[in-house]
């Protein structure tokens, strides 16, 4: 119980900060005001990238021992990206606990540490949108398109951008 109170205090604090001082590139709120562990964020497609102009919705779910363990981030808007699973889950190294990767595939310093906040996580997701990592793709098809059929890739991303605008 102690940890979950610590988690909710910290999340409340971050929510207050973000409402008071919004950060460029995204907006954040709760899915349901009674549950501090489920956040709804809208990420604006970063300018000068294929995702420019899109408004992508995602849900962040925090574990009760946050910030010792990382939250998960899942796009609810349609998304075509090498590091986003077909079901919308985001796969980036800072969302992986250091113990998760026994093969040393990702450097420990690039993985989750409790100093990360909602803001730093969403900024990482935005930077992932502008520079996909096709070395260890979550969506293999998208990674193939990104590597070999860039036109195809662009077309699919534009479709996602358009759809996200229509949903507004």
């Amino acid at each position, binding site marked *: 119980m102690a940890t979950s109170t*610590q988690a909710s205090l910290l999340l409340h*604090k971050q929510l207050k900060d973000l409402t008071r001082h919004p950060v460029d590139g995204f907006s954040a709120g709760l899915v349901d005001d009674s549950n501090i562990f489920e956040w709804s964020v809208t990420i604006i497609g970063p300018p000068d990238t294929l995702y420019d102009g899109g408004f992508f919705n995602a849900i962040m779910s925090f574990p009760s021992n946050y*910030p010792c363990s990382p939250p998960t981030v899942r796009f609810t808007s349609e998304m075509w990206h090498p590091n986003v699973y077909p079901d919308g889950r985001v796969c980036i190294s*800072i969302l992986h606990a250091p113990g998760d990767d026994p093969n040393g595939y990702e450097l*420990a310093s690039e993985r989750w540490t409790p100093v*990360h906040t909602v803001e730093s996580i969403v900024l990482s997701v935005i930077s992932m949108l502008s520079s996909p990592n096709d070395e260890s793709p979550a969506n293999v098809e998208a990674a193939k398109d990104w590597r070999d059929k860039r036109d195809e890739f662009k077309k699919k991303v534009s479709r996602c951008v358009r759809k996200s605008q229509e949903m507004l």
Partner: protein
Amino acid sequence: MDSEDDIHDATDLDSLDGGDFDDERNSGDDYDFEEELVEISSKIPQQQQHYTVLSEADIRQLQEDDTTEVSNVLSISKVFASILLRNCNWSVSKLHDDWFADQDRVRKSVGLLGLDRPVVDQFQNAREVVCGICFESYPLNQIKTAACGYHPFCNSCWPGYISTSITDGPGCLTLRCPDPSCDAAVDQDMINVLVSDEDKDRYSQYLLRSYVENNRTIKWCPAPGCEYAVNFVMGAGSYDVACNCTYSFCWNCTEETHRPVECETVQKWIQKNSAESENTNWILANSKPCPKCKRPIEKNSGCMHMTCSDPCRFQFCWLCLGSWKEHCSRPGQYYACNRYETAKQQGVYDEYERRRKMAKNLLERYSHYYERWAANEKSRQKAVNDLQQMKAENIEKLTVKFSMPESQLKFITEAWLQIIECRLVLKWTYAYGYYLPEHEQIKRVYFEFSQGEAEAGLERLHLCAEKELLEYLTSEQPTFAFHDFKRRLTGLTRVTRTFFENLVKALENGLADVDVYSVGCSRSASSSYGGGGKKKGGRTVYERFAEDYDYASDSEF
């Protein structure tokens, strides 16, 4: 004290292994050198020279010693020394080399930045500091930083961070400052201050395990539930070690001891045993054995003219499996095999049946070796149990019955220990035999000859120790008969030991004697064979074999 030092010097000069004997030596003033020599030679453990069995306490002690040494030499704290050592796989010499070659690089790679003083310098003027995790403000005494001294976190966020990492596993040994840009290590002192006793214990357990698991000279005993580890001195002969838990294993491959067979053969054999059932079916369905060397061949393309791979090189027809030489009477008709077609028409030839038979031969060869391998293991297990029962009950019965002291009955235990050891060796010679190439005819014959002799000897010994002894246990026998039995069993034990020593030696040098023999200078070879090998009737095993073999091949002509 002076006299003590003198004694030490004296023994050092004579290069005797001191250490354990200090107490006895210092007990009396009359220092008799000869007496001590006898004492030492009887006390040196026979085969424990090249390895040491370590209990958990021993491991901790070694770890502590290494850490203290490094801490003294490099003038750093013990916890830092332990971080450095873990990073160098606990090799003190490697750490010294690296450290004196490039101290900064070593420090950086393990996260010991700059000088060793985890002090919160830069916050001295501030009254309150914000924790980087929960963003609350705390007075200085409620926050801490790792070795970096730059990234403050509060006393409630640190424990959460550390214990999550400890729960995740041994990765906690390389724990760094939570700030992603910072490499500073979180050391054991800090951990001990911040987390629960349970987590502390787990951390120190991981540290202990890392000392064994990352160490090139120490391995855990593989027996289930055993907590000892064995420290092995590299390059000091046989890999066979015996743990304090009574399990004997090969330190190199951590399988049970398997002299005289090499580790690779053991791996192959074990893998074969586990994979056999699935493979057999596939082999049966998809391959034919070479008609000459019986190795399975899968034909995946090409014509029916097959040539077996080196060293067999036998040429045959895939369809009828007959020799290609006899096969091609008329050129141009190879492809459709006449013999095969005719035989099939006549109904003589059932290809499926024939294929099955071939595969069966192959399988039978494997089963032959496997059954004997497994039977010897079973027999060894039973011998182990018998020995236990012997020690627990029967020896005592015999002491009463023949009014002999227990020391006089040691020959029985010795016989059983010999049986157990020989069963193990014999068992592994069957794996050896399976992999001995079919075409090395002379080697095979020699191998089977030595194995046969050793096996026959062992069977005699086993029978004597099992059945004959039973008579003395169950029925009334005169004492002189028991003395006779003692003489016989002792003799058999000795003879069997010699047989097996010779067998092990012959297999361990790859049956090299027959190479010399096949070149044609067998008589001179016999004198160089096995320096310590005992002779029986003035001839070595090999000489007896060579004569038998000569005789056998003579009689063929």
